[in-house]
C-alpha cells in the first residue's frame, strides 16, 4: 500500500514541479492537467472513488478549459511595458517557501502518527444521504456561490460596449 502510494505520489508531484518551472505557459497548463489527473488516480488508490471522478471532471474537464482559454486570450503583446523580473524577488520567494517546507516536513516526519487501520469505505448512497440531509444548506449555498461566481466571471470577462464608456 505504502509503496503504491509513494509511486503515485511521484507521478503526481513530478508534473506539478515541472509545471511551475517550465517557461512555456501552455506546457505549464498541460502539465498541471497531468498533475491533476495523477491526483485523481491517487484519490482512487486511497479509496475515495467519487471524489476522484468529481475531481477529474471539475479540474480536467472544466478548470483546465478555462485556463487554456485565458492563456489564449491573454497572449502578450509586442511590447511589454515592464522591465524583466529581478532574480532578487525569486530568491526571496524561494527562501520563504523553503522556510514553510522545512516547517511542514519537520512537523510531518517528527510527529508520531497513530497507525490506524483504514476505516471502511463510504458508500455512494451514504454520501448522497449526507449531502441531502445534514449538509443540505451547505450544498445549496455552494450552488448559490457557483452561480454568482459564474455570472460574475461572465460580467468581468465580457468586453464593455463602447456606448457605456469607461476607461477600457
Amino acid at each position, binding site marked *: 500500500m505504502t509503496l503504491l502510494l509513494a509511486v503515485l505520489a511521484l507521478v503526481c508531484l513530478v508534473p506539478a514541479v515541472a509545471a511551475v518551472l517550465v517557461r512555456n505557459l501552455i506546457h505549464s497548463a498541460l502539465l498541471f492537467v497531468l498533475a491533476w489527473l495523477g491526483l*485523481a488516480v491517487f484519490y482512487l488508490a486511497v479509496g475515495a472513488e467519487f471524489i476522484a471522478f468529481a475531481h477529474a471532471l471539475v479540474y480536467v474537464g472544466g478548470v483546465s*478549459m478555462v485556463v487554456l482559454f485565458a492563456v489564449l486570450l491573454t497572449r502578450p503583446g509586442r511590447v511589454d511595458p515592464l522591465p524583466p523580473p529581478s532574480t532578487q524577488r525569486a530568491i526571496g520567494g524561494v527562501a520563504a517557501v523553503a522556510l514553510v517546507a522545512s516547517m511542514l516536513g519537520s512537523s510531518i516526519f517528527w510527529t508520531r502518527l497513530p497507525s490506524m487501520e483504514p476505516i471502511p469505505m463510504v458508500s455512494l448512497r451514504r454520501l448522497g444521504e449526507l449531502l441531502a440531509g445534514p449538509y443540505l444548506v451547505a450544498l445549496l449555498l455552494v450552488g448559490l456561490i457557483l452561480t454568482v461566481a459564474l455570472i460574475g466571471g461572465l460580467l468581468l470577462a465580457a468586453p464593455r460596449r463602447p456606448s457605456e464608456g469607461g476607461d477600457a
Partner: protein
Amino acid sequence: MILAAAPASPADAWLERAPVLLRDALTGWLPDALRPWVAALLSIATILGVFGLLFAYMTLAERKILGRIQNRPGPNRTGPFGLLQPFADAIKALTKEDIVPRAADQVLHFLAPVVLVALSLIGLAVIPFGRNLVAVEMEASVLYFFAAGAATELAIFMAGWASRNKYSLLAAMRALAQLISYEVPLLLSVVPVIVVAGSLSTTDIVAAQGGWAAGLWPHWHALTPWGFSAFAVFMVAALAESNRSPFDLPEAESELIAGHLTEYSGFKYALFFMAEYLGMAALSAMAVTLFLGGWQAPLAVLEFIPSYAWFGVKLLLLLLGFIWIRATFPRLRIDQLTRLSWKFLVPLALVNLINGGVWAATADWTGAAAVVRWFISALGVVVPFIFLARSLSAGYGPRTYRYASP
C-alpha cells in the same frame, strides 16, 4: 456446465451465458491468482477488437450511405460490395509518410492523437454490453464515463495548438468553446436519469429500466415525457461533443481546411479518425444505457434473443442516425452553435431536471393519479419547449424578397 437443464429464465439461456462461459473456459486452467488479471486483459482485448471492427465498418457504412443519399454508389471496388475497403484504407494510412511541421511543438504534436484515442476508449469500460457483460463494475460509473470523456477536448486543443498554424489554432479555440458549451447540457440531461434510477451505476440504471407496463410498454426512460426530452437533449449534445456534422466547426473543411487535422497525415490522421468514431460509439452506447433500456428487450416475448444482441441493435440504430443527420443538415455558425446550447438546451435540461424530480417524487401514484402524473410530466416538457423554441427562433423568419417596384 448446466447445459442439460431447460432454461428457467432468459438469464439462464445458453446463448445468453455464452460470453461468460467462453471466458471461464479460457481462464479456467490458470492459477487462481492470475485469473482476474487475464480476465481483465480478455475484456480489454474484446472491446478493442469489437470496437476496432465496428470503426472499420462504420467508415465503410458512412461512405456508402452518404453515397446513396447523394445518389452515387460509394466504394464498391475492393472486395464484394467494397467490404475490404477499410483494410485497404488502413494499409494506405500505415504506409504513408508521417509529416511533422518544423515549427510544431514536437512532443504535443505526437501526443495529441494518442491521448485522444486512449481517452475515447477508456469510457467503454463501464458500459454494460449485456447481462453481466461489463468490464469494470463500480458505484460511480456514470461519473467515471463523463470524467473520462471530459478530457478529450484537451487532446483536440493540443493538436490544434501544437501545429503552429493559425487555422489549427482557430479550430482549437472553437473546439474549446463548443465542447465547454455542450458539456453542460450533456451532463444536465443525465442528472434526471440518476435521480429517477437512484444510482450512479450503469448496471443499476439498466436494471431500473427492466419490465413492461401492461406487458407492452417497456419502462425505458426514453419512453417517458421527461426521459424523451432528456434523451433528445443528450443526443444533440452528443452530436456536438463528438464534433459531428452539423456541429463540426472545429474541422470545418470549407472554412478552416480541416482545422486541427490540417498538419496531420498518415497514421496519426487515421488515429484522429478512429477517435472520432470511438467517441461517437461510446456516447451512443451511453445513450442506449441511460435512456433506451441498455440490453433490455423491447417486448417480453423477444427475450429469447440474447441481451448483447439487443444492445448491438440499439447501438447500430443510433450510429446510423448520426450518419443520416450528417447527410442532411447544414453546418451551424459559431454564434448559432453557442446560442443553441446556452439559450435552448441548457434551460430545457434545467426544467427537465425539475420534471424528473417530480416524476421521482410521485413514483407511488397509481391508477387515475398515474394518468395525472403523465399529464403533468408531458406538460413539463411541452410548455418549456414551446416557449424556448419560440424565443430561440425569434428574429428568424421566412425570408422576405424585395423586388424593384415598377
